[in-house]
């Protein structure tokens, strides 16, 4: 395994009319804290509830209402910080970020500005080629989500749903360490994997529990950072990649035509895959941050942090190294398996006590392939780890060949059932009875005297004979036995 530092990744340069350019990307990932209650109120956070059914007096900013910190959300933020190998700040401060918007009932968002709960950390990002890059984390802070404005229910009126108002978010801010949309996508996937392993965020981008603000700039390789534009609220990895690609090209074109980049906030249009500047009115905020006088500074006990540390699960990076060392998997296979916690766990259930390489091939190959094709995931998979394990056992003990096993797998995937029973019922059991195989071989030799004559000079024709025998046995013959017997009978020794 090799690790590349961003400045070494010269191969990611993109070509402009006047030479090569480098894209520089930094991300602010907003991750909704997995918690039953909101950051400063006891209201429910469940997704998809009736509008305004999960709103406390605090969330609606009724006069005289006060925020009280939800300790569980703090614990989740600390867990996440530890998972990002980051410094946990024992004293942090909640600030008010002031602006007017109908879905922001208080007229300010409670966030952390100068003193975040989590400081610098690091994420190892796995790329498709099995290589990794380090992306530094600048900080993680806790903040409240806003409500939602709904504009399409009435021709003249807008409505506000405050269910999300006050829900706890973690804003995870990276350093500008990514150099391509692929790296940015891999980073988001990795952060998502980490929070899912930790159970601190469900990572569902389609439900809005994870979204990103993307900072993009371009520069000539080796030169100082260019002026960045921030693309707000991108809610899928695919859109993020598109936004980066478009935005980088836009900036390069402007600079190459002699223009300058204006630092601004932009939005991504998924219909056209383009970004456009947000109205200056929307971005020209002076947020007037100041410490929230309703909340005391958040003080954390070192021992409490240590206690949380002791409960951390094995995280993707450690799991990956263990899979490589304990199961002898390649970096790539290990990376694929650990990308999602339940997939890794599924693999382990299949692999334990079995040929781990075979297990890995089956899990990452047939199994993931079938799941993806069917649009399913581990949770609603029609095949359990136990069933897949049994099938692999039947390969290992030579009851079926790998090829037949694939047929059995397809039947299991579609109709369910026990692999041994399927094999029995469909008569797919591998023929290891040498006399039966010999009989078939003799038939083939007798039927093709010409080929038998040729094979002596062209040993490659062996394959054709094997194929014939396999065909005549319906694929059930043990391929090794067929090979051995054929060689003997054809006099190839």
């Amino acid at each position, binding site marked *: 395994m090799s690790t590349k530092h961003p400045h070494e990744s010269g191969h990611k340069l993109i070509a402009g009319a006047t030479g090569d350019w480098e894209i520089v990307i930094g991300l602010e990932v907003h991750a909704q804290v997995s918690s039953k209650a909101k950051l400063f109120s006891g209201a429910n956070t469940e997704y998809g509830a009736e509008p305004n059914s999960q709103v406390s007096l605090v969330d609606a900013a009724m*006069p005289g*209402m006060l925020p009280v910190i939800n300790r569980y959300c703090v614990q989740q933020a600390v867990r996440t910080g530890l998972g990002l190998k980051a410094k946990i700040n024992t004293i942090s401060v909640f600030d008010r970020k*002031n602006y007017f918007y109908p879905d922001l*009932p208080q*007229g300010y968002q409670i966030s952390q500005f100068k003193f975040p709960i989590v400081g610098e950390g690091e994420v190892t990002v796995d790329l498709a080629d099995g290589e990794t890059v380090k992306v530094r984390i600048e900080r993680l802070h806790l903040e409240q989500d806003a409500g939602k404005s709904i504009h399409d229910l009435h021709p003249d009126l807008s409505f506000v749903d405050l269910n999300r108002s006050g829900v706890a978010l973690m804003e995870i801010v990276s350093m500008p360490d990514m150099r391509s949309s692929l790296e940015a996508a891999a980073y988001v996937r990795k952060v998502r994997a980490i929070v899912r392993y930790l159970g601190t965020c469900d990572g569902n981008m389609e439900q809005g529990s994870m979204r990103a603000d993307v900072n993009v700039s371009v520069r000539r390789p080796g030169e100082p950072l260019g002026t960045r534009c921030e693309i707000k609220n991108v809610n899928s990895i695919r859109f993020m990649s598109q936004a980066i690609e478009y935005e980088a090209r836009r900036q390069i074109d402007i600079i190459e035509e002699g223009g300058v980049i204006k630092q601004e906030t932009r939005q991504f249009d998924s219909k056209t895959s383009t970004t456009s500047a947000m109205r200056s009115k929307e971005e020209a905020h*002076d947020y*007037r941050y100041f410490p929230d006088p309703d909340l*005391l500074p958040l003080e954390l006990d070192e021992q409490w942090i240590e206690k949380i540390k002791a409960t951390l699960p094995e995280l993707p990076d450690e799991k990956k190294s263990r899979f490589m060392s304990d199961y002898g998997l390649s970096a790539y296979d290990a990376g694929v398996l650990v990308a999602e916690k339940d997939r890794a766990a599924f693999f382990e259930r299949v692999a334990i006590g079995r040929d781990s390489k075979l297990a890995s091939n089956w899990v990452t190959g047939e199994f993931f392939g079938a799941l993806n094709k069917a649009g399913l995931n581990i949770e609603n998979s029609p095949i359990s780890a136990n069933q897949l394990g049994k099938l692999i056992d039947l390969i290992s003990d030579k009851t079926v060949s790998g090829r037949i096993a694939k047929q059995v797998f397809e039947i299991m995937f579609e109709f369910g059932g026990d692999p041994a029973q399927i094999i029995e019922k469909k008569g797919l059991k591998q023929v290891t009875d040498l006399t039966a195989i010999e009989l078939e071989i003799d038939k083939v030799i007798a039927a093709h005297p010409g080929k038998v004559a040729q094979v002596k000079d062209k040993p490659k024709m062996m394959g054709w004979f094997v194929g014939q025998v396999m065909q005549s046995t319906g694929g059930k013959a043990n391929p090794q036995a067929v090979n051995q017997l054929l060689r003997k009978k054809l006099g190839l020794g």
Partner: protein
Amino acid sequence: MTDNSELTDLTLAQARDGLRGKAFTARELTQSYLNAMNDADALNCFITKTPDKALAMADEADTRLMRGEGRPLDGLPLGIKDLFCTQDVLTTAGSHILDGFTPRYESTVTNNLWQDGAVMLGKLNMDEFAMGSSNENSYYGPVTNPWRRSGGETKLVPGGSSGGSAAAVAAGLVAAATGTDTGGSIRQPAAFTGIVGMKPTYGRCSRWGIVAFASSLDQAGPLARSVQDSALLLTSMVGHDPKDSTSINAPVPDFESAMTGEMKGLRVGIPKEYRVEGMPEEIDRYWRQGMDWCRAAGAEIVDISLPHTRYALPAYYIVAPAEASSNLARYDGVRYGLRCKSDDITDMYEQTRSQGFGDEVKRRVLMGTYVLSAGYYDAYYLKAQKVRTLISRDFSQAFNKVDLILTPTAPDAAFGIGEKANDPISMYLNDVFTVPVNLAGLPGLSLPVGLNAQGLPLGLQLIGKALDEETLFRAGGALEEAAGFNATPTRWWRDV
């Protein structure tokens, strides 16, 4: 005991004893106050009267008292500053922008009072969002001080922002009242109306359910006719509240029993910085008189210095408006209160807030927005916070040498309505002696000590260590006895 026809002349403690001794019923007592209230519309103390609720609560108290299950405040009729949210009762904070706002919840402090059996007479007038020192900033009109200059009919202010509370107590319209004090809003009106006002240590009273002005300074407290009454009321008001993160979790003493009638062994600090230029000689005289009373009660007078006092007012007028500008952002016309119709959201905000807020509120929101703005934050807000730290340090150093501090409450007596309306700076100077106490989060008590040459009451302020309200009640009780202040205003408003 006083004639039953004037039950409203009784102090809270006397009324309590009368109720327990079955000398009269809570309903009779409440009815007397309702009558007094209805005779006093000229003072404009009430924004909302709740006579039905009052009588219902009184009846419940009578039932308990009959059974001998009386609670600490059973049957005692109180007025509530209209900054406290009261369930199902209009709550306005003295502002147009809260038109029609009827909370579905009860503030912790008022809830504590009702749990202890008190009776609510109504909601008291106040400066809009508690911003003001004269009660001229109410959407519901100014409150008139029951006191008038000798021989004059000029309408005077009761002080502010708890002006309705102070005037109602002084005029005998309520047995006692709640107030809130952000920079002097309990103590200054108490001084202007000849009653006792107590601001406890920041965090003693829960702020939950009190409309916020400046969160780091706001603190509820009682306005009452005697030191004992304020001790009695405060005992019920305070207590740790998990719903307020700044609420202090400390044992609650029985403040009434702290009143021993003497000050033996107490060291009383006299800060030289509180001798301000242009302060009437009478105030200085009463201050010196106060020192003598302290000595006579067994205390020692110690000269102290609070060197950063002169920066307190400017720092206050940065911190308080900064917090207010943010706290008042929620009054946007979207969810409750006033909404001016418009097709455009920004225009709706602008119309609602420019029509809903009065001039002083707008002035402070603008000041607060300015001092928090990018590029000004360090020069104003951050600097003011540093000053605040220095002021706190002044006090803690002084409290190494003394047990409490004695000062005047306000630099002058009550002034005429309209006299300072166009001079906000002169208005702000009213709080020069009270503001440092809020900045340091300390308890402060104002008690009436005498009348000036024009026949208007003057007050002295006692400042204590954090969480040491007991020493203030002890010293306050002794000074009250020494001063023997028992003047009351003539009830001219009954004929208006």
